[in-house]
């Protein structure tokens, strides 16, 4: 078949990435593992010493950990959401991005909850969340959302891998890799032979999973937003949180996608896979998202400011005070709203590198925005803090929290290294398929036509 031949050709092209790891790969993996080992040591230290070695205290009970949690889960839901939309929309140019998006989803979905675990005073009692759950609590909503999402995402990711696993199994003799890996592909391919019947079934499953994953992501991330929105705290108690979180998530997801594409392109000379067009399309979507983001921010801020309440005014004073959060506030607004508009919007600045750099700044800006949303608000309770202990009144993260944050990034990169060896980083079989071959499931007319 034509598409099979094309798939083989493509596989030939991406073969070097999945064959036996070279020295560089191993070095990278070792360095990352070392960072992760150090992270585990810090984690043990934190469990033994207690949270006193973090910057968290009775007023700011959640710090960088929860910022990371919110941020990383946002990436995850965004990955799933965007992948689902691209899939259902049959967006041809986005096919090579599908796998990266799904990997982002899975990895951040694994790493995100680790951060909430770090926030627990008694991590040994984690299972109580499942033994004694109370549905009234937004944390339980989150637990349900994350678990559901994880099941769907793993299933979806696996479905998209099946065709490639079959391809790898069939081409195993030409591949330079250990035998256990060849056996693994045989097992993982589940006997997929690309018969018309199997292909139809798999494509239907993919459509259904994509359709499920879109609302799941939106609901799951809104639930996360309500973790804050449900509190009576000025600065959190706002109905804009759900939609704003979802928007920020999609924004950060696309920014991360661009960065990963850029890294692959530069490192492995994948100009043909991740083309200029990809960067331009996604760059423009960053502009649109930055405008939406600006609109959402403005709408939140003006409502806060126009008739300002006493407590709200107190944390706004902190936002605007350059000795407190003024710098973070300015940088966040600059990076997230203005930098994309200028450096992607104006053609003179626009290039592959500038789009990637802007994406990085957007990610940083969105992280800072989460920080601003959480820490200064916690520092401003209804009854102003009267405490001479500086660390009690003002939060600043300690080396413990930073180490564990970096560990999360290391874990993310290590996952990417491992999974890019498992199968090509682009869905080879899917890309080889003819355009318009797989009808969207809703366009099937009758049961007879289905069979």
């Amino acid at each position, binding site marked *: 078949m034509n598409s099979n031949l094309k798939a083989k050709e493509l596989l030939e092209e991406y073969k070097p990435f999945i064959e036996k790891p070279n020295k560089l790969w191993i070095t990278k993996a070792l360095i990352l593992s070392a960072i992760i080992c150090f992270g585990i040591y810090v984690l043990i230290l934190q469990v033994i*010493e*207690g*949270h*006193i070695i973090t910057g*968290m*205290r*009775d*007023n700011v*009970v*959640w710090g960088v950990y929860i910022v990371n949690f919110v941020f990383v889960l946002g990436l995850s839901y965004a990955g799933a959401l965007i992948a689902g939309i691209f899939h259902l929309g049959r967006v041809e140019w986005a096919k090579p991005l599908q796998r990266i998006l799904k990997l982002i989803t899975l990895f951040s979905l694994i790493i995100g909850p680790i951060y*909430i675990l770090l*926030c*627990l*005073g*008694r991590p040994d*009692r*984690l299972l*109580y*969340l499942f*033994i*004694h*759950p*109370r549905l*009234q*609590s*937004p*944390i*339980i909503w989150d*637990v349900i959302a994350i678990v559901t999402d994880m099941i769907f995402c793993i299933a979806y990711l696996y479905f998209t891998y099946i065709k490639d696993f079959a391809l790898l199994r069939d081409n195993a003799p030409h591949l330079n890799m250990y035998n256990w890996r060849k056996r693994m592909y045989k097992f993982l391919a589940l006997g997929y032979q690309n018969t018309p019947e199997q292909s139809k079934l798999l494509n239907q499953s993919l459509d259904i999973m994509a359709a499920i994953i879109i609302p799941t992501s939106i609901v799951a991330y809104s639930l996360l937003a309500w*973790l804050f929105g*449900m*509190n*009576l*705290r000025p600065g959190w108690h706002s109905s804009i949180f759900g939609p704003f979180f979802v928007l920020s998530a999609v924004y950060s997801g696309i920014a991360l996608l661009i960065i990963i594409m850029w890294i692959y392109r530069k490192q492995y000379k994948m100009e043909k896979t991740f083309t200029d067009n990809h960067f331009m399309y996604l760059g423009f979507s960053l502009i649109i998202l930055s405008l939406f983001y600006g609109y959402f921010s403005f709408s939140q801020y003006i409502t806060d400011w126009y008739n300002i309440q006493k407590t709200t005014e107190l944390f706004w004073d902190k936002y605007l005070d350059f000795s407190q959060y003024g710098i973070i506030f300015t940088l966040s607004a600059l990076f997230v709203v203005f930098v994309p508009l200028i450096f992607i919007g104006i053609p003179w600045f626009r290039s592959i590198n500038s789009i990637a750099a802007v994406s990085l700044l957007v990610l940083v800006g969105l992280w800072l925005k989460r920080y601003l949303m959480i820490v200064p608000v*916690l520092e401003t*309770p*209804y*009854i*102003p*803090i*009267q*405490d*001479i*202990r500086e660390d*009690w009144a003002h939060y600043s993260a300690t080396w413990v929290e930073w180490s564990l944050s970096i560990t999360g990034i290391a874990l993310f990169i290590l996952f990417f290294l491992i999974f890019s060896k498992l199968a090509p980083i682009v869905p080879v079989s899917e890309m080889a398929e003819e355009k318009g071959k797989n009808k969207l499931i809703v366009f099937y007319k009758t049961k007879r036509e289905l069979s």
Partner: protein
Amino acid sequence: MKKKEDPGNRRKFLKNTLALGTAAFTAGAGAVLATDGAKGKSVEKIKVLTTEGKVIEIEKPVDDCKIHPCEPPKGKEARKGIPGRSFVMVIDLARCKNARKCIEGCQKGHDLIPSQEWMKVYLMKDNPESEPYWFPKNCFHCDNPPCVKVCPVGATFKRTDNAVLVDADRCIGCKFCISACPYSARILNWTDKESYASNDPNYSPETSLPGQHGTVSKCDFCPDRAREGKLPYCATNCPMGAIYFGDKNEDAVTNGEETLRFRQLIKERTGYRFLEELGTQPNVYYLPPIDKMFPYERGFSSVSDETKEMLKKSISD
């Protein structure tokens, strides 16, 4: 929430009473439940007849036990509350001079380190023109508690006697309740301590003893002391008698010296609840700082110079 639980509890209470139904000559049915109650206070035993016709020997109730059983309940029993009680606190702001004895007494009674304050005293200034006043604040034991709503594991709960308690054996330390409380009433046990113990057989949410590392703790309204007919530590330790504690059902509150009618007191002295507009329905009432017994500056004598500066700055903002 409170209303819903009430009938169930009463039924359960009656059932317990009937099941163990002691003969009329015992001091009270509740005494039977106090099988190991009032440890070390009395060894005198009395014999009672159960409904099954068995004669069992129980400890004679001791005199300082006002609410039976005297022994603070553990586990699930601790979630019910003392039947028929509706604890309430009234704090007279006109009397507070920031002596900080309530804080010290509470810390001593609940094995807290100096940095842990279940009772805090703030210096408040309501508007630029008004005079500052001292504002003691513990947990308000709300009838609509935001902290209880958000607890993912049911470690914190509302009882029929108004107390909102924490079961430290259940708490996972997620701190959501701390961030949800609009009154900053909750704290975490950030460091481990020798006296701390997890799953201790003597632990009761009513006494909050022993504490546990990494769990949330807060003012427990001292129901264990109410059982003994004592006022909470803060109320007994206040040299000014600013803190009244009592029972809404009995319509009486006392600071240990004088006993007043609760409703009349709130009505006549214009008692109010802090941040009433949040709808949390606290069970701690304040009497406004009118005709203060001392100028507020007197309160600075019990704090360090550094704290004094911080407080002054705080009210000048």
